[in-house]
């Protein structure tokens, strides 16, 4: 937990934060409405004798009381997919519509890409990309299990992604669920901080900036880009968005989210950020008893 000390000045009730980080997380699952409605899924869970609790902010997100969430009929049928509660936030903020063209730039293993497809009623095009071929096989497995027919899967570096392979030359929306230092997953992976270093933060921040810039360029004017990470480091969050504001045509916009969270920072370590960074969301583990996440919604302005 030592690396997290640097966040003492920015986290309200830091002791509660640390204490939450040390508590393991339960089994969260998302209802996959491509395969079954929420109602039918809940009925199937009850039939199997599995207790659940629906998240207040999103009826499709469940907390499951079972030791083996992968060995249930609901999971076998693809009615449910194991996905951490906060990990379901970015697609909801992106708010894709049926028929649209959506880019998931860092998509493997596909929890959010299949959620995007479900939010679009599996109508339209979700281009699910990842640069890691091994992780793409997990993405493909999940997509087929969940019955997502609107996904097109590509294997490329998102930083210089080419749209030449398709007939269209821009997306309506893009999600950048960036590779990051994963500090916020400490409750799921107790060794998440083992290789923590400021150098690792700096190097992944460079990749994040490149991917976010490309996502903004590849999205139409008036379109939406959501940038998210599962880490607390401002270098990977506000500083990356600040860089995009300086280099690309976009602005930070508000969004509604029925969860407790803190506003993004406007300064860190002597660096000042645009005041609009306050509209981004820092979700800390102690606020909703979840993992940690950072989410930003951008509107493309040219």
């Amino acid at each position: 937990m030592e690396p997290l000390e640097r966040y003492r000045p920015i986290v309200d009730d830091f002791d509660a934060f640390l204490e939450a980080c040390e508590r393991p997380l339960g089994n969260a699952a998302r209802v996959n409405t491509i395969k079954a409605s929420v109602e039918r899924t809940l009925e199937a869970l009850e039939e199997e004798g599995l207790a659940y609790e629906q998240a207040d902010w999103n009826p499709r997100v469940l907390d499951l009381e079972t030791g083996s969430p992968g060995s249930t009929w609901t999971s076998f049928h693809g009615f449910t997919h194991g996905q951490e509660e906060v990990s379901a936030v970015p697609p909801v903020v992106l708010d894709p519509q049926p028929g649209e063209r959506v880019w998931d730039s860092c998509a493997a293993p596909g929890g959010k890409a299949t959620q995007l497809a479900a939010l679009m009623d599996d109508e339209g095009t979700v281009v699910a990309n990842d640069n890691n071929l091994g992780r793409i096989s997990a993405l493909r497995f999940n997509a087929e299990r969940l019955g997502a027919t609107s996904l097109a899967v590509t294997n490329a570096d998102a930083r210089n992604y080419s749209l030449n392979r398709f007939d269209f030359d821009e997306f309506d929306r893009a999600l950048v669920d960036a590779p990051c230092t994963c500090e916020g997953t400490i409750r799921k992976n107790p060794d998440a901080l083992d290789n923590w270093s400021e150098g690792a933060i700096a190097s992944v921040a460079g990749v994040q900036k490149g991917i976010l810039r490309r996502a903004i360029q590849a999205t139409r004017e008036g379109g939406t880009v959501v940038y998210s990470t599962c880490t607390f480091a401002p270098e990977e969050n506000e500083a990356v968005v600040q860089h995009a504001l300086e280099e690309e045509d976009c602005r930070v916009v508000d969004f509604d989210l029925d969860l407790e969270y803190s506003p993004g920072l406007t300064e860190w370590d002597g660096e000042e950020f645009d005041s609009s960074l306050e509209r981004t969301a820092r979700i800390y583990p102690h606020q909703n008893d979840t993992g940690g996440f950072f989410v930003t919604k951008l509107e493309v302005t040219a």
Partner: protein
Amino acid sequence: MSENDGQRFDRLPATPAERTVEGRVSREEVVDYFEDRFGIPPETFADYTFWEKGAGKIWIYAGEAPTPLEIEAIGMTCLRTRQEHWKPTTDFVQRFGGRATDCVIELDREEARAFATGEDQEIERWEGDWGYLIGAHTIADDLEPIGIGLYVHGELRSMVPKGRQREL
């Protein structure tokens, strides 16, 4: 006629008459097969396109894409052709098999469990066609497809792929 290129996705021709690749099936034949064998209404597929990548492997896709296309995947694999008996995939059957009216075998609790773990089992009561059947069971008051099976000589062989099998 040209040869099939196994490295890329090619959209299926609408009808057999429009075929340009040796041995490639048409959209019409695929949709007819699902209707003839399983009674799945052809309208089900009105908004989907069908593609071949890899010899005989057919994919179903709801999105936009030009043909040919060299990417990792589009939509899901749905059917294996270029063999005597065409074989639907378990994931396709789970996604679209709910609309089937024929060649659906209803399994009780224990049978369903065995089917999902990949076991073969004797089932004498089936009086329909032999060959590929949709294994289904009742869950939350409705029949739900589990996957694809092969019925021969009084035995239902589970064709649920290894990676999809589960102890339930």
